[in-house]
């Protein structure tokens, strides 16, 4: 049961993407020609050892960083041609981020954390609150809306982070080791939640993980090694 857009052009299209840090002798070639297409509604896991370039690739996918060479087209838009603020707008409207360390604002309630992206979208207060409450409900945190992150467990904090990522109805959820700080049981709960969002709401998911079990939830597993894609597996 794939999204209608799956038949058309890929949502994410990396073609010969390279990334070089530094110059001359000390230059590090973090990515050495990445070709990767991801269609709407796909769930892709990225695996690979430390230093294999998967984080760099995620930063580029998330429009937080620019490729040094090659092309990155997001829904047909050449991201390399966008300036800093245009990329911010792209992130604001089309991307949702989930991090290993949750990255919630401390001393800020769960619902206020979830409201944050809507502030930048210019939502009115009441509307913002309603959307945030509904997102928290979708991740199973009804009743915890007014708790500070410090009053929530790791799993609950990650749910808040997921609610914050999906409250703007993004095209893509970019998850960087979302279960890395959680025990296996909590990790599975988070993976179930992400899988549900992918399956029921057609949310495209790109997830970096070290954990083969977690990668097993994805449709495809892209394996990085030494700045290149080593191979693509089905789980």
């Amino acid at each position, binding site marked *: 049961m794939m999204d209608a857009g799956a038949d058309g052009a890929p949502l994410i299209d990396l073609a010969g993407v390279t990334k070089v840090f530094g110059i001359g002798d000390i230059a590090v070639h973090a990515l050495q020609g990445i070709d990767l297409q991801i269609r709407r509604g796909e769930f892709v896991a990225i695996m690979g050892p430390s230093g294999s370039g998967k984080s760099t690739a995620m930063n580029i996918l998330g429009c*937080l960083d620019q490729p040094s060479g090659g092309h990155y087209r997001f829904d047909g838009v050449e991201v390399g041609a966008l300036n800093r603020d245009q990329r911010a707008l792209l992130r*604001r409207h089309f991307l949702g981020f989930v991090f290993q360390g949750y*990255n919630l604002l401390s001393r800020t309630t769960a619902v206020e954390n979830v409201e*944050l*992206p809507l502030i*930048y979208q210019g939502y009115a207060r009441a509307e913002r609150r309603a959307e945030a409450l509904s997102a928290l409900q979708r991740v199973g945190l009804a009743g915890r809306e007014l708790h500070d992150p410090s009053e929530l467990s790791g799993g609950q904090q990650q749910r808040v982070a997921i609610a914050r990522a999906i409250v703007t109805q993004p095209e893509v959820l970019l998850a960087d080791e979302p279960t890395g700080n959680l025990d296996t049981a909590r990790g599975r709960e988070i993976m179930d939640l992400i899988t549900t969002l992918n399956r029921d709401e057609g949310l495209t998911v790109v997830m970096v993980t070290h954990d083969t079990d977690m990668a097993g939830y994805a449709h495809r597993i892209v394996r990085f090694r030494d700045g290149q894609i080593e191979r693509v597996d089905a789980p």
Partner: protein
Amino acid sequence: MMLIEASRLAMQAIVRNAFRSILTVLGVVIGVAAVIAMVAIGQGTTAEVTSQVSELGSDLLLIEPGSIVHSGPPRPAAPFSDRDVDAIRRQITGLDTVSPLVARSATLIFGNRNWVSTVQGVEAPYLDVVNYSLAAGRFFQDGELRSGLPVCVLGATPKTELFGNGDPIGASIRIRQMSCRVIGVLEAKGASLGQDRDDLVLTPLRTMQRRIAGSQDVDMIFATVRDPAAIARVQADIEALLRERRRIGPQEEDDFDVADMKEIATMLGDITTILTGLLAALAAISLLVGGIGIMNIMLVSVTERTREIGIRLAIGATSAQVLLQFLVEAVALSVIGGVIGIALGLGLAWGVTDWLGVPMVVDPRIIVLAFLFSAAVGVVFGFVPARRAARLDPIEALRHE
């Protein structure tokens, strides 16, 4: 829309670090309070001086040995004498009254009470010249003035200190070694410019010279002119006469001063202006220091909240929005400082003007100016930290511990 959100965020950040915020804005508080208080006190003092001077009238000349108006250190100068007063009376035309004065500090004793006050030896026109009136009893009669009889008129303060609510008329008090009969009491005038205007005792000039001062010297002469339009001419005539009598050569400067009230008002106004300017400069330095304090704490805040900035950038905040957030926070801090400073300054001005006995003059333009200035301090000193926040690399910022 974003401005409202930014203000809300700023207030949150300020309240979360309430103690630090208060310390941060202290410089601005002190600067603004100083400006408000100084200007209000300065203007109040000027208003009081102006009203006192105009009360004395535009027809009054004040003749004193030494120099009060001209710049430079005060020079010792011989006092005037009775003969100088007579010469002015006889030789200067256009004068209405001439009223010499000798003043000494002295202890007054009545029964077991005593009080140190200023005793002024005066002649008949004095009450009119300085605008005092009698509350009870009478003033000196010609015979008392001519013979130098031991009689006195009490100011309201020594009257209260020595007699309380009792009636002093007819009572006998001691001024230094002299026993003296009280014949009148002056109407109270209240304090002004930090001075109690009721703390004085009047005696006839002769009495003062013979029995207290022990010389024919005269400390000061008040002269009123008949036609205020001719005051400059009369002033010049008195100066010429006194130069001749005091044998001052053509090249030498006066060792006395003949001043009209306008001159004195100008001089006092100048002093007030200089003081106000000096204190305003101090206030400006305080504001500058306050601004640097705000910049410092905002830089700390940006560093502390690097990860927060990274999160905001990742979820789609533009650089301009991050800049605005931190700029608004700096402005909010300095404006809070400004408002506290204005309140404190007005309170201070109220206290000091009350103590000095001058009216409190509040110029609303100064308050608006102080407010705008404190906001400007926030913009100027908040800009660098805010720009630093806006320029952060989101990847680096998210990695920041």
